[in-house]
């Protein structure tokens, strides 16, 4: 299954694109799995995601913890801590 990934702020800048559609291996079940998988895709991903503790993730535009399942997600947002307001 293909999943749409969207990136924001310095995660977007470091990965070098605002979004992409990727095919995830079946072994990728949780948010943590996804972040580890992405880090294996290249230096730019490694650079963006080297400190997973500060990375925030949203599934279908709702915040989720890193132990949450991504199975069935249409859209996964990956971004740094928010600094609006």
């Amino acid at each position, binding site marked *: 299954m293909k999943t749409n990934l969207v990136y*924001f702020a310095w995660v977007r800048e470091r990965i070098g694109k605002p979004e992409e559609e990727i095919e995830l291996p079946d072994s990728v079940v949780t948010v943590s799995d996804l972040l580890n998988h992405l880090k294996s895709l290249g230096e730019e991903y490694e650079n963006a995601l080297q400190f997973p503790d500060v990375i925030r993730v949203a599934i279908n535009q709702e*915040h989720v913890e890193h132990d949450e399942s991504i199975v069935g997600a249409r859209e996964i947002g990956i971004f740094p801590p*928010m*600094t*609006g*307001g």
Partner: protein
Amino acid sequence: MPSVTTVPIIRVQSTDFDLQSEIDALTAGRKNIGAVVTFSGLCRDEQGALSALELEHYPGMAEAEMRRIGEIAIERFLLLGLTAIHRHGKILPGENIVLVIATASHRQAAFDGANFMMDFLKTSAPFWKKEHAADGTAGDWIAAKDADDAARDKWR
């Protein structure tokens, strides 16, 4: 007791907003409102070091998060009205970034409603600020502050 459920007014836009119009939209023709609290967040120039802020957001999710927080604020503080408007794009020093308005029968509810909305908006709504330095050098993304998490956690 309100005859209809209060629904937050939420907007994310690149253009500026007009505070008085937004207040009027919440208060016109109503005689049960005793308190109106507004919060406007403005872009500071950091003693001249900053030429602009660039506000990035997650379209769709930004509005959804603001609406979710707004609904919690309305229920928790029995607000009679709540508006939250957040700008995106390039914002110059002295310009508005964000507006929150809370109306209630009594003053503490209006103060708390607006304050709560801002604390959660800052830590949960998907917006990110990048600085443009006055000397033309590439700016940094603003780092999230522990103080903002602490401010949010006071509402637990």
